[in-house]
């Protein structure tokens, strides 16, 4: 077991003294090697949950255990370290740096991984790009790539330093059908190789292709769906 949320609540203000509670008493468990889809209507809290899992957001109450360690006591520095070490992120709009090339974009997580030396970059980046079938694009500028190609580069960045968990937030949201399939296939391959993948999507077709589905109800609670 690597991720466990117990009674997690997330609340924030909308700036007009109104409290919004996207997560309410969420209990969630992820084991190593799981492939999980989280679905629900837009704005329900799916991305918020992913952000909490990825140590980008803090919880309001409850507990979040990562590899049996309560993350409540983590400092910001430790959270940065956790993000780099345990998680790879695939965002809806790919999140690439537009004025840098593929090599530089994919190398970003390696810069903050103290165990990886500069001389090891090339080998790791090449391997990550090969995994997403983008090895020939190493020195291309990301602005020259299509949406699907950018998303594959984003996946390469997410896996380059071999994290345990891949978090994908609507990775196919901005893509056409063909590219969508390619991306889902890439994520499935990662899972087959032992990575834990958690994908947030409102696309039920995609959700149906993964192992475990969780659905948000309108009360902000997360329920496991029967697949």
């Amino acid at each position, binding site marked *: 077991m690597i991720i466990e949320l117990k009674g997690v609540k997330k609340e924030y203000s909308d700036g007009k003294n109104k409290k919004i509670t996207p997560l309410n008493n969420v209990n969630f468990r992820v084991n190593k090697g799981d492939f999980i889809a989280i679905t629900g209507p837009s704005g329900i809290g799916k*991305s918020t949950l992913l*952000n909490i899992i990825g140590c*980008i*957001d803090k919880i309001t109450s409850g507990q979040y255990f990562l590899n049996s360690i309560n993350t409540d006591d983590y400092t*910001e*520095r430790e959270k*940065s*370290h956790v*993000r*780099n*070490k345990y998680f790879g*992120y695939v*965002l*809806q*709009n790919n*999140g*690439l*740096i*537009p*004025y*840098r*090339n593929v090599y*530089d974009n994919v190398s*970003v*997580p*390696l*810069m*903050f*991984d*103290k165990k990886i*030396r*500069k001389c090891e970059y090339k080998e790791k980046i090449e391997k990550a790009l090969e995994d997403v079938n983008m090895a020939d694009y190493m020195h291309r500028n990301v602005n020259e790539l299509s949406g699907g190609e950018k998303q594959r580069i984003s996946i390469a*960045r997410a896996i380059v330093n071999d994290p345990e968990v891949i978090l994908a*937030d609507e990775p196919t949201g901005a893509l056409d059908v063909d590219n969508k399939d390619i991306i889902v296939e890439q994520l499935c391959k990662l899972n087959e190789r032992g990575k834990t993948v958690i994908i947030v999507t409102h696309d039920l077709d995609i959700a149906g292709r993964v192992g475990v589905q969780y659905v948000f109800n309108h009360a902000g609670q997360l329920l496991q769906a029967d697949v």
Partner: protein
Amino acid sequence: MAGGILKKINYVLKDLLTDKRENFRIFIFSVALSFVGLFFFCNMGYVKKHIRLLERLSNTVFITVENEDYTYSDIEKLTREYGTLHFVGHTGVMCDENVCEAYVYDKFLADTISYSFKKGKAIESDNQVIISKSLGKLYDIGDTVKVSGYDMAGTPIEKKKTVCGILDMDAVYYPTGKGNLIYDMLIVDLDDELYLADAIITTDNAFYGGDDNMGIFTLEPNDKYESDVLESLFENIGDVSDGNDVIGVNEEHLIYEKNQKKVFVIAGLIVGLSVFLGSIYISVIRRRRELGVLLLEGAGYTEALMLIKINGLLSAVLGSVVGETVSIILMKKGILDGYISLYYSLAVLLIIVLLYMGSTLIVGACWKREHIIDLIERDI
């Protein structure tokens, strides 16, 4: 740890090479701002020095010696002569066995001063003189001194007198650029009346410089009063004029010029500053997604901010060095008026760095409140 730093240096250097347009913009604005900034400081320094020199020169005594027998060393020697006490200005005084009292006044103040005798006694005849205790270091009771000055009718006097008393009174030292002049007091008998007089003797050399060939020598008195005294010292050996006659520059004109230039330079600085800060702002705004990505992938906040901004800082510093160099060259060639100082150069460089870092940190502080994902995904 060294490996981590190397990776980051590599990231910054790549940034310098890839984001050429942005870095070049910051470089250019830094050149312009540092050029104008350094010129501003140097010009102000130049004008300040100019005015100070003017003030000094307006009090300088220029002596054009007509007698070819007088040389540089003769003039120098004259200013060192201790044996003559030159007095100007006097007020009536009354002395008894123990004390001398005088009623003194100037434009602002009227007062009675009273000095007791440290040694000796009051004047009994007109060939005696009473001196202060500072002059008492040079002369003692019974010594003969040469005294020169003007009597009440303005007639010049020069007489030898014997010191009969030393008053318990301090002299006042006036430092000049090159030497010291002592304002001191003595009491003389003029026309059977006792007078307390200011006496001036030169101690060190107030002699400033001169040219044997041209026969022109300069002395540097502390103020107009002293220059009047020195003029009287030398008028029997040459033509004496003060600085204003020679230079012919007036302070008002210089201040007017300074103000005129200041307006243009300040306007240039404001424009340059606005453009520079605007450029930094735009360059920082452009990089918000990159900041978000770095934070997402494991950077600390300050670390991420520095990584995306250090290349711009390098461009700003380089631009500053170039701008200042151009400014210095133009001033050295006399095309621009400026007093060059290393402190000004360092100050301008420091200001540019602080402006850059300050504006970056301000924008960064605003961003710190934003969600990492929003930094990456939200359009500005």
